């Protein structure tokens, strides 16, 4: 057994980084401001927009957030994955509209590519360039070998679906198939032949698109046959970091609802006096804590085992983290809306921003049942 740090590897540096993120979000990203920023137009048939604050992105890159988990050899800071989790958790608590999570996810994939070309892209991430992954097919499969994009003679053709933060990203890592297998390719988002078609989505704090590639010249970062392997190695980190975003958003929903339950008076009592309100909120807390402990343990397992000697355990923890976080996200948002009563059902109440982010999060890279089905095969064995 590999000995893992008791504190998940969350030491002084990670605490300082997290505390600076807390301060950053409390200075710049109140829910009130967020609502004014992204919820200006409730029209269901509104034009699809991509709203974010590039100035704030500039600031967080200067604070080193995108460099945090880029290896030192590629010009980054080389912090453990738990540092990225802490940043994602704070970003989730602020429902921060930014390509931070997508850029992290791209980082995790490139770290597994072990190529000079991948390191060049990592250096750009460390320098603050936002990136995203274009690795999902039209069926929305999360399997690393599934892609609707092909590569032939160095040119990409086909469409990648459900690309996160697509219009914020300046670079894309694309999975594409050739006769020799699935490889990974880097293209600039504004390269010739790249057409980004924005999706109309529910979450107001994100943007998503399907992206078609027509004869796009691309740089190989992982060779055919090595691309899906790199993706598979990166998936636990991706699942853990999204789970952390959900933990942060879940905690916002919990604390905001508790505050409301403590101030809103009905039947001469604050709502929180009534156990029909109090007990489910305690259950939300239990669920958040489970998700948080699992997410940090998965990240720590990845950090502690660079040789992947206990990889099955790492994979297990990450599936558990995302499964638990997905259920928690749905539960925390549903209780938040319900316990705010009529006001919770309005566009005006900030709860819907987090509700929608959680609903998006819960499916991203697999919902709870998806992960549990994989866990069942791993831990019980394939069903007859």
């Amino acid at each position, binding site marked *: 057994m590999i000995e893992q740090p*008791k504190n*998940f590897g969350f030491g002084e540096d990670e605490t300082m980084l997290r505390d600076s993120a807390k301060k950053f979000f409390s200075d710049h990203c109140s829910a009130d401001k967020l609502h004014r920023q992204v919820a200006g137009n409730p029209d269901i048939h509104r034009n699809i927009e991509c709203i974010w604050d590039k100035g704030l992105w500039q600031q967080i890159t200067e604070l080193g957030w995108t460099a945090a988990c880029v290896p030192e050899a590629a010009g980054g800071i080389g912090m453990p994955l738990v540092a990225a989790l802490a940043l994602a958790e704070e970003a989730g608590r602020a429902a921060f509209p930014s390509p931070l999570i997508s850029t992290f996810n791209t980082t995790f994939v490139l770290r597994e590519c072990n190529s000079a070309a991948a390191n060049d892209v990592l250096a750009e991430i460390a320098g603050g360039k936002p990136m995203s992954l274009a690795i999902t097919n039209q069926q929305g499969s999360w399997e690393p070998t599934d892609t609707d994009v092909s590569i032939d003679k160095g040119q990409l053709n086909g469409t990648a679906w459900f690309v996160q933060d697509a219009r914020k990203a300046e670079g894309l890592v694309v999975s594409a198939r050739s006769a020799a297998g699935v490889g990974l390719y880097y293209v600039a988002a504004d390269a010739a032949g790249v057409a980004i078609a924005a999706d109309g989505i529910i979450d107001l704090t994100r943007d998503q698109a399907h992206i078609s590639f027509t004869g796009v010249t691309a740089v190989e970062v992982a060779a055919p046959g090595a691309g899906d392997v790199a993706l598979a190695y990166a998936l636990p980190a991706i699942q853990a970091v999204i789970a952390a975003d959900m933990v942060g958003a879940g905690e916002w929903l919990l604390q905001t609802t508790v505050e409301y339950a403590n101030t809103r008076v009905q039947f001469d009592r604050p709502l929180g006096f009534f*156990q029909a309100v*109090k007990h489910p909120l305690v*259950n939300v*807390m239990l669920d958040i804590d489970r998700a948080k402990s699992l997410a940090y343990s998965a990240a720590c397992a990845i950090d502690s085992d660079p040789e992947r000697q206990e990889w099955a355990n790492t994979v297990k923890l990450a599936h558990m983290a995302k499964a638990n976080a997905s259920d928690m996200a749905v539960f925390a948002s549903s209780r938040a809306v319900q316990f705010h009563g009529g006001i919770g059902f309005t566009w005006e109440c900030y709860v819907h921003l987090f509700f929608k982010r959680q609903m998006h999060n819960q499916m991203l890279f697999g919902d709870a049942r998806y992960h549990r089905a994989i866990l069942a095969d791993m831990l019980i064995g394939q069903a007859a």
Partner: protein
Amino acid sequence: MADADRKDTQEQAEFRAYCRDWLTNNKPGQPPVRIPLGALELSDPAALQWLQVWQKSAFDAGLVGCDYPVEAGGGGRNNCQTIANQEMQRAKTPFFPNIIGLGMAAPTVLFHAQEDTKNALLPRLFSGEDIWCQGFSEPGAGSDLANQQTFAEKRGDSWVINGHKVWTSLAHFANWMILLCRTDKADKYNGLSYFVVPIQTAIGKGVTVRPLIKLTGETGFNEVIFEDLVVEDKYRLDAVGAGWKVAMTTLSHERGAGQLVTPSAGGMTQDNTKGANTSSPSALIELAKTSYRNGKTAADDPLLRDEIIKIMIRQEAFRQNQRRALVPALIDHPMRIPLQNKLIGTEFNQDLAEIAYDIQGAASSLYLNDENAPGGGEWQLAYMNSFGVTIAAGANEVQRNILGERVLGMPKSK
């Protein structure tokens, strides 16, 4: 990262090595009789006696009471009980029988008893030679614990006690009781006082212990009746009227949220019975692989597979919660995880056993007295017994009140 974050202290590391070594040579073999799932289910004197011998040997070796002062029979170490507990779990030892003594009476006595009383009582408590019980609940004082009616009246230098305690686990074996009772009828909370009472020597002389039969058919708890029992004043803990405060020390330790880590052993499985280990999901998977529905095993049923995985996720999360509880940078409120433990642990066991019921299908009707019962019928017994602990030690509804009020800051439900 500082080394301290990663490793045992030097004292802990040396002690861990010592424990591991001692356990290798001294871990008990298979018991001669059936040992129940936990100490609260003890009803066979032979099982008790065998477990007492084990507890005493662990105490003599220094694995019990490690962090208590030497004068009180402890080891005088720093944060070493955790190490001993981990090593005993690792070695899969039997559990300790004096569970109420170790978990509730010991810290209360340490923090609140008079010096002589403390030093006289604790060594025999740690060794398990004295078994302790807890006399808190009464017919009219359950969740509303402060509604105590048992009354202690001062007569000269002594106290005379009259009243009726119920659900008193282990009282049928106990030498000593921690007793909460009333000394002032005018004040609900400040009218309570706390005593330690030698009950076994007083049976027939002011104390009557009557077993109550649980819904499983087992005995395990009792009612205890006091009729003019005389107790010396040296057995009073803390001031007259300070009983509620003292009881809080007991309860915080009972809920695993106290200052001192409770000595705890366990993990043993018995080879000489066909009984299943009903606290582990891996046993659940084994059960699923040997139980059938619609011609396939239960382990092939997609809905049951999902239930099994859900409970395994909860188990892993519980484990990781314990780890995170010790990392201040990753927790928002110091009591947030400790106060969840009782609730989460007891509901985990209940739900685990309930899934086992579902897995067995028709065979879930069979009980301990049927030779065809899967796992010896232990899952069915475990399911029924699981309600004992979702009710005892502060019913889980009350635990949810506590979490909502103390951790989330919501208004008191009372």
